[in-house]
């Protein structure tokens, strides 16, 4: 099996940039803290997921470390209405990012790509709906 390891060491890209201009090559978009995406039909070949987190400042507790957790669940399309869909996978593993918001003077975004954890678990759920919900936790830094 071919690996992208040579191109992307450790299977991860993470980049913090000032501003809020989302690169045009991002596909599904959601505003708010959650997004629902239709998974592709050939999910078994899924290689990685890229996120663009945009932080519009000011945030309520900026003087702190911030941890972003992404919960997710996958729903099959059994019912006619969204509410009828059956949850076939709920996240055990949380996808997380840590930033020190204290240092941010204005809007920033984080571009993040990874090809492990979440991706491995999604491979068997082709064409289903992936719902991602993010939660921000603020932690006071030690010594405060």
């Amino acid at each position, binding site marked *: 099996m071919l690996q992208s390891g040579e191109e992307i060491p450790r299977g991860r890209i993470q980049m913090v940039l*000032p501003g809020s201009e989302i690169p045009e090559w991002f596909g599904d978009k959601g505003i708010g*803290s959650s997004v629902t995406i239709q998974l592709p039909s050939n999910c078994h070949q899924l290689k990685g997921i890229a996120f663009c987190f945009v932080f519009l400042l000011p945030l309520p507790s900026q003087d702190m470390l911030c941890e972003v957790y992404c919960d997710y669940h996958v729903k099959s399309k059994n019912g006619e209405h969204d509410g009828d869909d059956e949850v076939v996978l709920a996240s055990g593993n949380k996808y997380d990012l840590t930033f020190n918001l204290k240092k941010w003077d204005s809007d920033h975004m984080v571009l993040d790509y990874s090809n492990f954890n979440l991706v491995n678990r999604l491979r068997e759920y082709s064409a289903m709906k992936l719902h991602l919900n993010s939660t921000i936790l*603020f932690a006071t830094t030690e010594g405060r």
Partner: protein
Amino acid sequence: MAKNLVSLILVDCPSLTEVPSSLQYLDKLEKIDLYRCYNLRSFPMLYSKVLRYLEINRCLDVTTCPTISQNMELLILEQTSIKEVPQSVASKLELLDLSGCSKMTKFPENLEDIEDLDLSGTAIKEVPSSIQFLTSLCSLDMNGCSKLESFSEITVPMKSLQHLNLSKSGIKEIPLISFKHMISLTFLYLDGTPIKELPLSIKDMVCLQHLSLTGTPIKALPELPPSLRKITTHDCASLETVTSIINISSLWHGLDFTNCFKLDQKPLVAAMHLKIQVSLFISSLFLACFITFLKCDFCVTVRRGDPTWQNSNGSTGE
């Protein structure tokens, strides 16, 4: 006092304010370790000629180097008021820590065997070119030496120097020839210095793994060595061009351009897209999404170490 005392170790004794002055006549003393005895008010001059190891912290009343021993291997006089280290005491030192000695204005001399030299927070104005002949020097820390404005020319390869910290010093530029000869340097910290330009010879630092430039007025990153594993660049307000890092794959797991408002982002974003597409091409699939935090009325504030930390779960907000 015990005449034959060889070693006195009183680590972590905050109540210790003085040691008996009779200590100075103990001629068999080899080691005194008063690490973290932060309330020590005074310390006598020691006349032991066999002393090898001495550590005193935060004793501002010490104004002269409290030993005459020519056998010193380790000397830590952190946050004392000493102005110099006698050459006779310096000659066998392997570790010298004078951090926070704000009365030190001159770089210590005759440090032939030195490996680890911490002069951070001193008032030293100049680094002598003789440091290039310190063949064992592995680490030089001059963090916070605000009076230091220039770095000497290094014209012979320094094979041992791995760690150089010049953060928050007043250094404006480093001679091209000096970087060229720091052939083993692994960590280079220049945070908060007024350096506007890095010498092109930085690409010759074939061992460099971590370059830290936080808060510098640097405009562009020159070609960097492929050995680099980490680059710290946040708060570089003048930074515009960083295209030279695009091909150093190992840097991509943590690029931080926080508050680099002048940065030309396009080449970076395009390079990331390309890297992902290469992986997409192999696997034929890629999924993208974005999440915007417009407002967080779902924050949970916890203190680290709080048992609820792991279980905290906020509700979603718009």
